[in-house]
């Protein structure tokens, strides 16, 4: 009886974490994707491009300026667990793909929003970078859940 109690105690933490991933994690992700789709639809009027020149006719009455945004998104316990299992056989790690996608899209949406708030209608020369925040974990210490840290910057300008 005592053994079962301790077994239960040991298992309860991962089980609670998996349940959290299934409920909170899943709904956060779903909600985030829905909001991203909504924001992207609203930002259709802002032209985003990665070219080095300014596409379209530039309205030089407004001086172009740099816009930038950071996003750090973490995976939940369930995602990390699925990824760990995936590592055994290899292949696409879809859970992490979604985390990266969320971070990149969120950062892009933020610079476009920033540009729009400043009265610009286009952003060119967009660059994306990632930062490493994970290396902070000491060796031997339990591996923390994965994090996607993305930053995006570009030049906002006014298109005629």
């Amino acid at each position, binding site marked *: 009886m005592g053994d079962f109690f301790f077994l239960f105690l040991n298992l309860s933490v991962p089980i609670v*974490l998996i349940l*959290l*991933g299934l409920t*909170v*994690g899943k709904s*956060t*992700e779903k909600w*985030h994707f829905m909001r991203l789709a909504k924001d992207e639809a609203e930002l259709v009027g802002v032209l985003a491009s990665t070219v*080095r*020149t*300014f596409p379209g006719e*530039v309205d*030089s*009455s407004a*001086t*172009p*300026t*740099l816009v*930038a*945004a*950071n*996003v*750090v*998104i*973490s*995976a*939940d*316990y369930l*995602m990390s667990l699925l990824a760990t299992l995936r590592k055994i056989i290899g292949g696409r790690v879809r859970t992490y793909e979604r*985390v990266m996608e969320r971070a990149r899209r*969120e950062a892009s949406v933020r610079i476009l929003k920033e540009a729009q708030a400043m009265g610009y209608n286009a952003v*060119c*020369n967009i*660059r994306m*970078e*990632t*930062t*490493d*925040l994970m*290396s*902070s*974990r*000491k060796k031997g210490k339990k591996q*923390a*859940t994965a*994090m996607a*840290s993305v*930053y995006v*910057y*570009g*030049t906002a*300008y006014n298109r005629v």
Partner: protein
Amino acid sequence: MIVVSTEIIPGFDTVEVKGMVQGNTVRSKHMGRDIAAGLKNLVGGELKGYTELLTDARRQALERMMLQAEQLGANAIVNVRYSTSAVTPGAAELYAYGTAVVANPMMGA
């Protein structure tokens, strides 16, 4: 100060190149943020503490670069790039670099 990530500034003539300017900052996260992020790690989602930390660091790197350009007597920085490196565990370096130039508004523009 005009700061852009492109090579040219529409409506402006680059009259003089003052040279390369850069700004960097190394930031480490603190315990409070680490604990909050640790909890957030369980359920997933955005880690706002880290986002703020990196945004602050990025701004500071940019400000330092702009200060350097000002000292050179430039009024604009073109071709700005950001980059990061993990210097040591627990700290991230953010640096911004670009070319300081003197840009004058085009005549008749």
